[in-house]
């Protein structure tokens, strides 16, 4: 541009293109940041889920003494589902194990549900009465396992935080 008017227009275009470029760069920066945070959350959730799965699996394999017979918690759940007997024994063992585990670990709350033909256990255990925090802000932390029963299956759902 050789004339005076044209000579002033070019710097104005440069200025606005710089503004637009900076706005786009800021937008890209925030998109990357949000994406990275989301990836990190996914990895954290996966790690937490992996721990919950291990804890549930080992909890179900824990051996307990029932009338002089050694059986696992999973066996006891199946037994309770079958004839309703030993429900108190199951609740007492479950409370003992999970309460002691919470007391001696970093976790604050545990939730376990087992449902066969009818609900078998529905339990929410908190570390101690002084704990004021909230539990299970993230519903994704629930894991489940299935146990066999004559017609269908027993579903055990578990979450820990």
């Amino acid at each position: 541009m050789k004339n005076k008017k044209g000579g002033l227009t070019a710097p104005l275009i440069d200025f606005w293109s710089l503004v637009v470029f900076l706005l786009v760069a800021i937008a890209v920066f925030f998109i990357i940041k949000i994406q990275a945070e989301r990836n990190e959350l996914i990895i954290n959730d996966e790690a937490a889920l992996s721990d919950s799965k291990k804890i549930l699996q080992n909890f179900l394999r824990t051996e307990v003494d029932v009338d002089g017979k050694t059986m696992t918690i999973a066996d006891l759940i199946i037994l309770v589902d079958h004839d309703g007997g030993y429900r108190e024994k199951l609740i007492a063992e479950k409370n003992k194990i999970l309460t002691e585990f919470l007391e001696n670990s970093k976790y604050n709350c545990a939730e376990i549900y087992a449902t066969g033909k009818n609900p078998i256990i529905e339990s929410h255990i908190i570390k101690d009465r002084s704990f004021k925090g909230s539990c299970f802000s993230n519903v994704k932390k629930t894991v489940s396992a299935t146990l066999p029963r004559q017609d269908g299956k027993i579903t055990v759902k578990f979450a820990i935080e």
Partner: protein
Amino acid sequence: MDKKGLISFNMVYWIGRFAFLLILVLVVGYVVSRYQSAELKTRLSESEAFFNAVYYSPDAISYFDVEKGISVPGIIDLENFNEERIESALNYEKNDVIAASFSLFDLNGKLIKTVVYNKEKYDLWKPISKPEGKGGIGATSVFEKEIYVLYFNGKTNPGILKAEIILPRR
């Protein structure tokens, strides 16, 4: 505008354009570096993979059921719970990437045994370890895991496995 005025105007104009170009390069460089560093945060996954290798490996700490001929992850054999087993299972030739301690407690919180993997680096890194995202670039990242497990010492008992996995910030 006379010829002299036009030349000085053009000079200022081009200086402005070079400044614009410089800002452009800097901003693109910064955004690219952010993108790269965001993609490289893999320490949590590394610690998770390491823990799973120790937890699930049949040659590490798991109890081996002779009758069924299988190793049972989640049940820790106290005889296998030692440094040598973990080191032979993982087989790093020169390990300056990861160190860890595993402490086994009974359900009442009484310590049964502690095993330290890569002790030389663990002792070096532990005092400067911080949780991921905290501490400077010279710090090391520590990841803590606490799992309800069973341990075997003639019979299976409930216990708690606490692991501290430390990785340097490379």
